[in-house]
């Protein structure tokens, strides 16, 4: 009886979490994002810098399972920004997670956007319009962590609603994004933490990683697509000794390059 009650409670809680909609995103959805947070200087003392130049903004979108957008959140975000702040010493960056809804007009104040598990995106009309306006005005979107043919098809469907008629290209190895900060010569398929421990890098039928992109009509990259790969997990589990260093290194390099590229092109 007690075990059954426990299962039901846990199961209910899990369902409640999974069904949670992006309206429940914390930290002031719809308000200005320049909120006070205690930041740390390299010597560990607190700095009150309420107006950083860069936020690692995570897209909160409507998905099939409710909180698809929050996979790896917030650890991946915080862990990634810790590394970024150490590597890009002159970037004025917030160390905190920063989710924003796609239909929030305030999204346009943050020209760098990250979205995860986009194979399970199911955007509402306001979200489509919001993301379209964002990208056409000059915003930059990085999508990550979606695997296999079905999830690719879903993403392509969704992104073509946002940018009708867009062309998705394979990014050539000499694309400026791959030399914006680090010169990236070797490309990996970055596995999630479980598969990495099991010695496997692929999921579903996503055997080959795709590093693709969408350019605007002037040839500028506006959407960076990391498919059949999981940069987010590599950031999230970088401190775990069992997680192979080369994947974390590659994931940080890609992330840093994407930030630098998005802030200069």
């Amino acid at each position: 009886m007690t075990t059954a009650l426990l299962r039901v409670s846990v199961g209910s809680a899990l369902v409640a979490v999974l069904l949670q909609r992006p309206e429940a995103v914390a930290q002031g959805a719809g308000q200005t994002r320049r909120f006070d947070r205690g930041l740390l200087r390299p010597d560990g003392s607190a700095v009150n810098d309420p107006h950083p130049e860069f936020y690692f903004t995570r897209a909160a979108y409507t998905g099939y399972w409710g909180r698809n957008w929050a996979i790896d959140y917030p650890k991946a975000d915080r862990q990634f920004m810790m590394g970024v702040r150490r590597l890009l010493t002159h970037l004025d960056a917030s160390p905190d997670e920063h989710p924003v809804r796609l239909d929030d007009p305030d999204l346009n104040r943050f020209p760098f956007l990250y979205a995860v598990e986009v194979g399970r995106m199911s955007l509402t009309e306001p979200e489509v319009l919001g993301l379209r306006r964002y990208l056409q005005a000059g915003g930059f979107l990085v999508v990550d962590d979606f695997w296999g043919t079905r999830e690719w098809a879903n993403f392509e469907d969704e992104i073509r609603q946002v940018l009708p008629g867009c062309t998705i290209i394979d990014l050539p190895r000499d694309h400026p994004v791959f030399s914006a900060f680090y010169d990236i010569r070797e490309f990996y398929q970055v596995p999630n933490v479980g598969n990495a421990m099991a010695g496997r890098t692929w999921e579903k039928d996503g055997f080959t990683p795709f590093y693709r992109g969408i350019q605007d009509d002037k040839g500028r990259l506006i959407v960076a697509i990391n498919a059949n790969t999981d940069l987010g997990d590599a950031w999230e589990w970088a401190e775990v000794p069992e997680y192979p260093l080369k994947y974390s290194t590659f994931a940080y390099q890609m992330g840093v390059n994407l930030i630098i590229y998005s802030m200069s092109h």
Partner: protein
Amino acid sequence: MAPWIESVFEFLFKYRPFLFQKGRFVMAPPWLAVIVLVVGAAAVVISYQRAKGGTGPATRLTLAVLRTAALALVLFCLCRPALVLSTVVPQQSFLGVLVDDSQSMRIADDGETRGQVAARSFGPQAPLLKALADRYKLRLFRFSETAERLPSTTDLTFDGSRTSLTQALERASQELSSVPLAGLVLVTDGADNADADVGHLLPRLRARAVPVFTVGLGRERFAKDVELTRVDVPASVLKGTSVTAEVRVAQRGLGGQKVQLQVEDAGRVLQTQEITLPADGESAAARVHLTASEAGPRTFRFKIAPQPGEPIAQNNQQDVPIEVADRREKILYFEGEPRFELKFIRRAVAEDKNLQVVCLQRTSQNKFLRLDVDDADELAGGFPKTREELFKYRGIILGSVEAGFFTADQLRMIAEFVSQRGGGLLTLGGRHSFAEGGYAPTPLAEVLPVVFEEGRDAKQPFFAELKVEPTPFGMTHGVTQLAATEEKSAERWKTLPPLSTLNPIRRTKPGAVSLLLGRGDGLPGAQVVLAYQRYGAGKALAFTVDDSWLWQMHADMPLEDMTHENLWRQLLRWLVSGVPGPVTVSVSSPRTAPGSPVTILATVTDATHLKVNDAQVVARVKDPAGVERDVPLEWTVGKDGEYAGRFTPPDKGAYAVRVEAARAGQTLGSETAQVQAVDLAMEYFGAEMRRPLLERIAEETGGRFYTPQTVPALAEDVKYGGGGATVQETRPLWDMPALYLAIIALVSAEWAYRKARGLA
């Protein structure tokens, strides 16, 4: 003096006022007369004191004064007053008659042209000319820009394109310097539009006793006239730049009316603007915003349609040459940290073919990202360390980078980039800019147009959200124009979303101007957002916000809105406007009459923009037929780096001038200019009769000013001018009717007053 007043004067005082001006008053020593007057006055006073009658002392005093005054006048007559005049001896002196032969003499003020009016008095059959010829040996001259002998006034053509009274008087007086010269008669409307100042010549003429008699033709004031007095545009601009033309308009008789000013380029209308005409005697200023979209040597025609009743329409139009360059100006943008501002500035001007923004972005310690460089070597060592490397650029943008990044020499170099090289420097707001970046004790603090706030705690970061608005100056400046008209632009500014700043800046330096201000909640006073000053040969701008990219990204900005792009294009084009290359060229007259010499001036510098005096400089002049010839330019010696040469365009048309400079076989640079040889319509500007000038010439030389109505007196007046071979003539004054009338009046008044007071 009005003719009727002169007549009355002559009746009363026997001679005309001019003779009194020219003559010298003399009279016999008055000692005896004074003694008689004193005795007589005493007798008058005593007799009135003794007179019977009940009158007071005031009345008696008045009567005594009247009688004494009458006595004084009689005694004055007895002292033999006279006027001594120098009179020209007939047929022994020469007289120069200079007739204006310029185009302004074709103007018909009241149905008759000025030339026709001149012919009436100075034509071969005119009585005045005959009277003058009877007494003097006449020498006729025609003059416009220069002067020459004239056989007869029937040979006048009235097609001179400029008028120089100085040249005319100098030439005539030189030619007649060896003969006794009674004077010079200057027949003109006085519309002098040459560069020489006649004031230097007048004392010399007076010293030589050469009076100038000026005859003024034409109206002093037109009944109705619109004149486009002045148009100022930059001599050269980049193709596609919005140019602001400053226009001045004057008028007569049409005050308060609205007219249309139209600007054309090769027949294509660039802009039309309504101007309200000012009051009589004032001139109105207007700003017209145009875009120079065709490259090469252009001519912008500014014109106002002739208004009904205007005697001349030629002064309603001005053709202004402008060189529209189609080159790519290089700007170095150094950003000290990754910022979105860099991304969006690059995007804003990416399509501008005349701007190349080379970006150097510091991404991490000692790591830089280079964008839009010409080759792999450009900026390979980071921020330029030599003047040669830095001075290749025409403009510098400094983003959020602390002063401590630069060496002391680099900071000095940036200051000299502005002051000596003449470049443009733009500093952006950011957490490491201005005082927050430690620039207060550096040379750049002097260069920048803003004052750093003192007494701030540097550890306390500043932040303010600002609503940006243009200042009154900013409303009219081309850079901050967001729409086709100033009114629409002002409305557009009100709708822009607020920006933010991390640098408290409230004051500009003396001499600097603000174009944009920002106001925010809790801010004491306005923040200076965009300010500018000239510094040395260049210009320095400060743009104190750090996120203008919000005017592109903000949800309230429509996607098709081009405010952000236009603002940055205009700002960066302004930054590099007027920045010299290694060779700069100017011509003395971009528009000139065929046959008038033109001076070509070039300034030549080396790669570090130091002026060089040993360059080989040549101007290749291509005439309208396409034939090219070389004009060597020589160092002027008086000024470092300055070379000069002259050429004279023989025929009408456009002449392309290309100046090339080299030193020790190495090319330093080249620059182009244009000269247009055209029929200038200068004669129709300021074409009203300049009475004050002509009166001044006459007065300072001992002559006299006449109008066509008073000119018959000229023949007589020249006799007394004092020039030429003269004799002394004494004219008595004791029999002036004024004296008799005064004596009679005094005596009558004394008798009448006495009667009235009962003393008679």
